[in-house]
């Protein structure tokens, strides 16, 4: 995602504060920082979540590649403890959405969504990796199950080599009865 040459006087990412993402690559000043256009494109390309899903939100980086979605007002930069929802990891080969982002925005996804049923869903929530057939892309998937009559996102799975790995964070794992 970095196309500018690194120079000695280029601004760097400051992990102590929130900086609003530039709209486009032309406006990028901090090397390696994702742009709003790239974030919107990524959600659209990877999951089919339309850019309009984020019309109310601005995007911010704090920490290396940790992107936050915020729907309120704030100047940039701003040094505070939290700004909206931590929702995407960039600055790595494969961008990764957070569990919380997928639960909040993943309901609008139309591709790379895998629906689990019954015990498979409960095992995923408990953090178990499972062998599952999947004809689609490998990589990060949005994992759903049918709840109250509709597909509802549970979290993020990583599909590789015939296996769906659960990347539900430890603090969000739970052992429940299958529906």
């Amino acid at each position: 995602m970095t196309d500018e040459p690194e120079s000695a006087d280029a601004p760097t990412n400051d992990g102590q504060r929130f900086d609003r993402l530039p709209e486009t690559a032309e406006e990028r000043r901090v090397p390696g920082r994702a742009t709003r256009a790239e974030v919107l494109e990524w959600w659209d390309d990877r999951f089919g979540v339309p850019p309009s899903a984020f019309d109310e939100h601005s995007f911010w980086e704090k920490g290396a590649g940790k992107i936050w979605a915020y729907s309120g007002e704030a100047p940039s930069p701003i040094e505070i403890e939290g700004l909206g929802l931590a929702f995407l990891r960039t600055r790595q080969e494969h961008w990764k959405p957070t569990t919380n982002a997928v639960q909040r925005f993943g309901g609008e996804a139309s591709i790379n969504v895998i629906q689990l049923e019954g015990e498979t869903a409960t095992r995923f929530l408990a953090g178990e990796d499972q062998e599952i057939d999947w004809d689609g892309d490998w990589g990060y998937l949005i994992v759903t199950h049918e709840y109250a009559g509709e597909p509802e996102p549970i979290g993020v799975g990583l599909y590789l080599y015939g296996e769906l790995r659960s990347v539900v964070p430890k603090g969000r794992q739970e052992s429940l009865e299958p529906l």
Partner: protein
Amino acid sequence: MNPLERYEPLVDDPAAFRAACDRPLPSVVRVNTIKATVERARQGLDSEGVEYDPADWHEGLFRLDGHSPGRNWAYVHGWLHGQEEVSVLPGVALAPEPGERVLDLCAAPGSKTSQLAAAMDDRGTLVANDNNLGRLSALRHNCERLGVTNVAVTNQDGRNFSVKPFGFETFDRVLVDVPCSCEGTCRKNPDVLEEWSLDHVESIAGIQKGLLRRAVQLTAPGGRVVYSTCTFAPEENEAVVDHVLELEPCRVEPVDLPLVTAEGVTEWKGETYDERVRDTHRVYPHHNDTGGFYCATLEVTG
């Protein structure tokens, strides 16, 4: 001495008051309308076979008898949040609207913050502050689980809270849910009565006065401040409001709340308070079968 004895002269039915304080509270959950409607949450719980009784005074509050609030799919999906029933009251009194600027001055661990965010439909600016950095992680965790995106989290002493990081001057509404002696939570945690001391009440009242004064100063004229505690002590309730009515440009706003409440007291231990504090709300456990609480709504006059 059981500190509850000191409040018996204030209550209408001391025996019922004491009996209610001795009973445990049911688990209560609030539906998070950022992620689900009340109807969807009901469908979800029904599909899981989780039994619940809706609270009659507030749509979207369910009492789960003998059931852990966190052990079901509805909770996993962030459709529900475990929150003591009566602690929903200050958010109802504050009544924030989408698009407003709202401050929650003592926000951790975030039950009320996330309730305010839902009332705002997750739109506007909701600043959630707490002076305790350790408790901020619980606040952030709760807000993120519930899908809140309009919250900005700060770590300041609320008595000197500065809006400088945000570049605007005032808020439309401020919630001041202060640290207190917590007597009203005795149905959940009887230890609070063992650990109670008058020294603590008196020292914390000073902090509460500083917090409420700052809240009024941070609110635009015409804006609303809600002050709340989970204690019965007039030193921490009416006395604090009385103090701030005298020093800051504000008045008590008489609001109707959907629970049975008693009016604020104007005399206590030889002190008298501004008559206007009668229009604040005392919540006693025997009136609605909840915890104990106090809630005052102020309008800032400019």
